[in-house]
């Protein structure tokens, strides 16, 4: 996005203070490396990402192969063969939890990407141009903002129907309702950056709107959006699980933690493992992204220094 960002890599080993004037980003990176919360969150997320890309690395059992399920061994407890026990269909819960990570991570990443790009771009335009552009974009955003997100997502997915339900419909349903939040934050940040002296100076030197936005305003307004985007990732993952739990999100035979929890809830007293382990992984994943967001905010917010 901006060339100041690229300074992170080579200079990151030593404290950069002496050699170069510190930018917001290098300071933030310096802070982050010293934050325990950030390191724990980063390690957890790294493991989850690897798990979702190459699940075979963690589990020798392919959870998508129905022949690995044995109904006669349904609802067994934790054992050497089945680390997390088995579910109602006699499938290995451990391998299903591992294979279930992919959908959660994908929904989190793609929903965040879509909302950040759409909300960020429209927020930039609204904040920069103001007047009727701002009025129109902000009113439209407020209309979407007024829809309760769970209810709205349920409605969208119910309209889409179970037959077409899948990861992309879930991303769509979540994104449609979440982009206005990013727009608001971006707009506020852009409006405060717009009146800064360096922007006025650039304008006086004849910089056009494109250059002003991309070179001067965006790099200085993007920090709060990044914080919100990181935290949203966890929120989206939890929302996907909730929608799948309610039966409108991911559909079997795809594997989703929310779906696993829904399937296991009726027999919770007989086989608690089948519910507890996907719930645990869901909680840890959401926690990891929220912690990451927290650490990034602490690092980026100058007021907290």
């Amino acid at each position, binding site marked *: 996005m901006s060339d100041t960002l690229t300074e992170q890599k080579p200079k990151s080993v030593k404290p950069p203070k002496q050699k170069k004037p510190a930018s917001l980003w290098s300071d933030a990176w310096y802070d982050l490396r010293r934050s325990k919360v950030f390191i724990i969150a980063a390690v957890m997320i790294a493991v989850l990402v690897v798990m979702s890309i190459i699940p075979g690395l963690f589990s020798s059992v392919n959870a998508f192969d129905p022949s690995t399920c044995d109904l006669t061994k349904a609802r067994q407890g934790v054992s050497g063969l089945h680390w997390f026990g088995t579910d*109602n269909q006699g499938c290995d819960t451990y391998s299903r939890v591992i294979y279930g990570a992919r959908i959660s991570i994908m929904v989190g990443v793609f929903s965040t990407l879509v909302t950040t790009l759409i909300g960020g771009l429209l927020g930039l335009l609204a904040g920069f141009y103001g007047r009727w552009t701002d009025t129109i974009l902000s009113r439209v955003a407020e209309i979407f903002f007024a829809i309760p997100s769970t209810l709205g997502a349920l409605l969208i997915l119910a309209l889409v129907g179970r037959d077409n339900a899948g990861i992309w419909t879930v991303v769509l349903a979540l994104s449609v309702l979440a982009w206005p939040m990013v727009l608001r934050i971006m707009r506020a940040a852009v409006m405060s950056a717009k009146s800064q002296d360096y922007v006025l100076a650039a304008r006086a030197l004849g910089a056009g709107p494109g250059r002003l936005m991309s070179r001067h305003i965006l790099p200085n307004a993007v920090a709060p959006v990044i914080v919100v985007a990181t935290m949203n990732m966890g929120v989206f993952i939890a929302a996907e699980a909730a929608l799948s739990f309610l039966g409108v999100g991911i559909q079997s035979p795809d594997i989703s933690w929310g779906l696993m929890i829904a399937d296991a*809830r009726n027999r919770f007293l007989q086989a608690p493992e089948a519910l507890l382990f996907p719930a645990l992984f869901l909680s840890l994943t959401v926690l990891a992204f929220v912690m990451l967001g927290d650490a990034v905010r602490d690092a980026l917010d100058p007021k907290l220094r």
Partner: protein
Amino acid sequence: MRVFKGAQIIAGTAVLALGLAACGGGEEAPNPAAGGEGSAAAPIVVEIAEPQHELVPGNTAETSGAEVLNALFIGLVNYDADKKPINQIAESITSDDQTNWTIKLKDGYKFHDGTPVDAQSFVDSWNYTANGANAYEANYFMGSIAGYGEMNPVDPDGDGPKAAPAATATTLSGLKVVDPLTFTVQLANPFSGFPTMLGYTAFYPMPKAAFGPDGKVTAAYGESPIGNGPFKMAKPWKRGVETRISLVRNDDYAEAKAKVEAVDFAIYTDLNTAYRDLQAGNIDIMDQLPAEVIASAKAELGDRYIEQPSSGIGYLGFPTKVGADYAKSAELRKAISMAIDRKTITEQVFSGTRVPADDFISPVVAGYRQGACGEACTYDPVKAKELWDANGGPQAGSIELGYNADGGHKEWIEAVANNLRTNLGATVEPKPVEKFATILDDLGADKWKGLFRMAWIMDYPSPENYLKPIFAANAGSNYSGFNNKEFEELLKKADSAPTVEEGIASYQAADDILLKELPYIPVYFYQTNGAFSSNVKNVKIDPFERIEIANVERA
């Protein structure tokens, strides 16, 4: 049409989930049944779900309403332990040709308001139920009586834009009152099993007081029905408002008086809550237990736990005429049937509350043959795969398994899907649909191509009820499109046999055709799992899954 969706099961599980989230144990769930009465006159309390309609016999075709009506009313016949009809109000039910029946009544039976139970009270009640304009749930039970067609003209295009022609009669031409204690019934077709139908809720008589000046059954009657049975209403019941239906003993009852003075029916939306109340002694009898507690209930309650076969059968059906390739081929249908591990599914998914099905006729009626289905219903993955491959199964496309998502069917459908994937190597798509009615509508419009789940509870204890309404060419509940001349001939022969017993061989021959063609795959037979508290004894459940309430005693 008594295809059913198992809504009560899902109602239980949904609320269970909320309960887990909300209370987490320790405290007792709110108890709608807790009463403040003294113990001397405390009624026996029976668990039911909310009846679908006000308590009118002709408008009750579900088990909860029937449970209450069974205490308020008695019918022409009752059933013995072998599910054979025995005359109750009827003195005799006779016919020479299985079409024209003469029903003579015993004298001395009275309604709760003191008016006699006469031939006219039966004829009035049946006519009212048979009148399509009243839209009563049990309307189709009258379909075998002559004159039903004139009262219920067929809509030429189903739910389509064309209106049904107007009815040309408001009474059944087949019903004639001869004298106060005799009436005759002319059937549309010979049917030797007619007397077996007459103990059902739909055939109860209603007194003159039921009908208002306009000839309609009054709203007051629905709240406080006047019956002829061992119990009468203690006070009117407002449906949707009150969660208890209170009955007291009818001391003018012509037969042996009921053993307890009062019975309350407590309405529950959650079987798990009801079961906790049973354990706590707040209610006395449940005729259905939540699947989750079956295992522990057996051990905990001992001989206060009831387990007996029920009349329900669970199937997987095929649209045999308009469906996918695998639905059209009898060999492929057989291969699918053989690839399903019924035993493990009934044990693991249903915790033993269902048993593997091996016939189209339920074990609760005469005519059932153990193992009649033979090889086709026996789990044999190797043979199934051979049969599947030899008949073009791999080219038949992916198998769809349709089910209604609100009935607690997901687990067993998923288990079947895994069976088919593993044993046949086929792609299987379980297809949840919001409502059962959607599948039925799609089937009716020839739009459903794959398998669909189906279930049937008998209307009356006769093998005919498991064959004709589901598989006869133009039957109301024939969703498979099955149409077989030989089958029709055998049914006709069986129906016109002088007695039900003599017809059974022909019913079984018709059954054999189904077992060969497999338009449906029988998967499991339902079981009745009930329980009662230590306050009561002598609790029996009849073939309609109703408690024989008059015989229940205090322990």
